[in-house]
């Protein structure tokens, strides 16, 4: 992609805004449309755009696959862990009301943590799937 100067410059200018928009959707899911899933997908699309323009090798350097798998597992663990924490603090599984004296504030904490876990897992899994598909043809050599 060395000759596509316009694409490279525009991508480098756009990616920070895409990441910022993903962060906005993640944190404002309580007040408008949005939440964990949409934000995870938008985050992933920024890295997929980077991979399309600059190649899979560069994306792997930015985001190694071990880190991706760790983040995906961490997101799911965070979700289940919030439920277990509610059990430990005396309520039912995933009963957010026991996290604080004011049950509404406890709900806010629980929902924020849960949406963060969802966003982490969704974005990591989408980038992982894309990198796996894109790296399949070139690395396997000419076994076809």
């Amino acid at each position, binding site marked *: 992609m060395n000759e596509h100067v316009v694409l490279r410059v525009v991508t480098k200018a756009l990616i920070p805004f895409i990441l910022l928009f993903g962060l906005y959707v993640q944190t404002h899911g309580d007040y408008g449309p949005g939440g964990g899933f949409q934000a995870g997908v938008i985050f992933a699309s920024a890295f997929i755009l980077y991979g399309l323009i600059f190649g899979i090798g560069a994306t792997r350097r930015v985001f190694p696959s071990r880190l991706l798998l760790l983040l995906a597992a961490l997101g799911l663990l965070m979700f289940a862990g919030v439920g277990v924490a509610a059990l430990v603090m005396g309520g039912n599984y995933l009963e957010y009301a026991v996290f604080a004296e004011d049950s509404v504030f406890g709900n806010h904490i629980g929902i924020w943590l849960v949406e963060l876990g969802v966003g982490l897992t*969704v974005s990591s899994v989408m980038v992982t799937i894309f990198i796996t598909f894109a790296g399949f043809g070139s690395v396997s050599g000419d076994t076809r």
Partner: protein
Amino acid sequence: MEILGHYNYWVAIALMMLGLYLVIARGNLIKKLVGLNIFQTAVFLLYITVSKVAGGTAAILKEGYTLYSNPLPSVLILTAIVVAVSTTAVALAIIVRIKHAYGTIEDDDIMARDGDP
């Protein structure tokens, strides 16, 4: 809105049947997967149509609005969309492996290759 009546349901059923036709009548595996995607999205349309309330607004609470559309089908369909994309990703991976092993993704060619001893 009464003049629309059941128009949404008929369009959703027509789209579902188009997707079903693609799944059962086309030989190319990727075309079958595209038909499955069309089918899934048409089912979601059927659910979301049921949730609309005439004169209501989107399901985000705000002062001055008292009538809201039903949020419950939205929640179910959100889960269903994510499950649909997961199954599409795994199906595409299987199709790439089939191409790698058989050299083709047309189902009658694959059956012919399998039938040979």
